[in-house]
């Protein structure tokens, strides 16, 4: 396996890079695959089939200047920042690998730092708390396994921004399963030390050197998919948002039906479910205070 230290902290670029290796890159038969090591600017990364509106508070994310990105693997929402190290393994397979095939060596590597690390299903736990969440995608004979590793992440932001499902929303989307978390950085370990330990453990075949064409292709994919509202919010499965004042049905992030205070609100029909778009329309329909309350009920 070769390694690539991703020089970008843009989640859209990093997710596009994963997709490039999973879907487009031609691994030769004797190629052991690639390991990507990357860190993201503060962001929330949701699972492929999650409802962004259900997993996070759009208003809270806006206040904290946090963007949402949809990844290609399953599972729930995770928080990324520069104190979190992400590892991605992409390779061909003949016999489908399981989580343990990837996570056991990672846990062993962490143990060599004196960390109590135990694999439990899709997670690595330390002293009963999650330090690494993992997910996978299988496509065209290749596997993408990726995981987070909480080193010095801002756990305050993590708990504020994730793990609070909005129970006014009903959908068939995949739900997150919050679990108590902890950083491993308290043991004096840095993300840089961990990177080099990952390389030593997994990347015997050396460094992968991307060419300009490949980087251009990945950037194009990042811009046309992972950086778009249509992918990150619009791919949310159909849902219904309902409380005492508001009833909204949305599909692909577009309002199909809206009623406020029991009255059909035609002006919202067909609108993208965005804070900005709704704010403009509600301001035309209601006094400023009422518009603000309705906006908060929909997006808080």
């Amino acid at each position, binding site marked *: 396996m070769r390694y690539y230290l991703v020089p970008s902290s843009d989640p859209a670029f990093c997710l596009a890079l994963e997709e490039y290796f999973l879907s487009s890159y031609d691994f030769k038969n004797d190629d052991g695959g690639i390991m990507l090591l990357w860190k993201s600017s503060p962001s929330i990364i949701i699972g*492929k089939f999650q409802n962004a509106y259900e997993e996070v508070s759009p208003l809270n994310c806006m206040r904290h200047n946090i963007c949402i990105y949809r990844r290609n693997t*399953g599972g729930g929402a995770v928080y990324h920042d520069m104190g979190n190290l992400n590892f991605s393994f992409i390779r061909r397979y003949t016999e489908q690998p399981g989580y343990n095939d990837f996570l056991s060596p990672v846990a062993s590597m962490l143990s060599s730092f004196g960390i109590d690390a135990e694999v439990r299903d*899709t997670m690595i736990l330390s002293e009963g708390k999650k330090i690494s969440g993992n*997910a996978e995608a299988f496509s065209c004979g290749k596997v993408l396994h990726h995981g987070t590793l909480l080193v010095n992440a801002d756990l305050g932001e993590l708990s504020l921004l994730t793990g609070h499902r909005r129970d006014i929303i009903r959908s*068939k989307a995949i739900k997150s399963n919050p679990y108590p978390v902890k950083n491993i950085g308290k043991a004096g370990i840095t993300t840089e030390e961990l990177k080099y330990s990952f390389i030593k453990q997994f990347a015997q075949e050396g460094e992968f050197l991307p060419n300009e064409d490949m980087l251009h292709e990945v950037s194009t994919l990042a811009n046309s998919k992972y950086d778009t509202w249509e992918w990150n919010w619009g791919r949310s499965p159909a849902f219904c948002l309902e409380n005492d004042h508001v009833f909204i049905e949305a599909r692909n992030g577009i309002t199909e039906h809206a009623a406020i205070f029991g009255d059909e609100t035609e002006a919202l029909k067909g609108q993208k479910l965005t804070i900005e778009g709704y704010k403009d329309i509600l301001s035309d329909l209601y006094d400023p205070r009422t518009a603000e309350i309705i906006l908060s009920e929909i997006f808080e």
Partner: protein
Amino acid sequence: MEKYVKLPEISKKKEKAILCEWCATPGDIIHSGELLCVIEVNKVTEEIYAEYDMEILCLLIEEGDEVAFGENIAKVRNV
């Protein structure tokens, strides 16, 4: 000839998956090797491909619904 497509047994540990996305609708002709649907099981997304050329007659599982491995997911006709 009309027949049923079953969800292949992918996971040895789990009995069911969520059918998250259909990549075909009734009336579509899907060729062998083309993507039929995407499922999720235990945080894994997995693509399910057509094993032969077929016309989709009816989808038996809605997106977001749970489906057991081996269960019928679509009614199709050989083409």
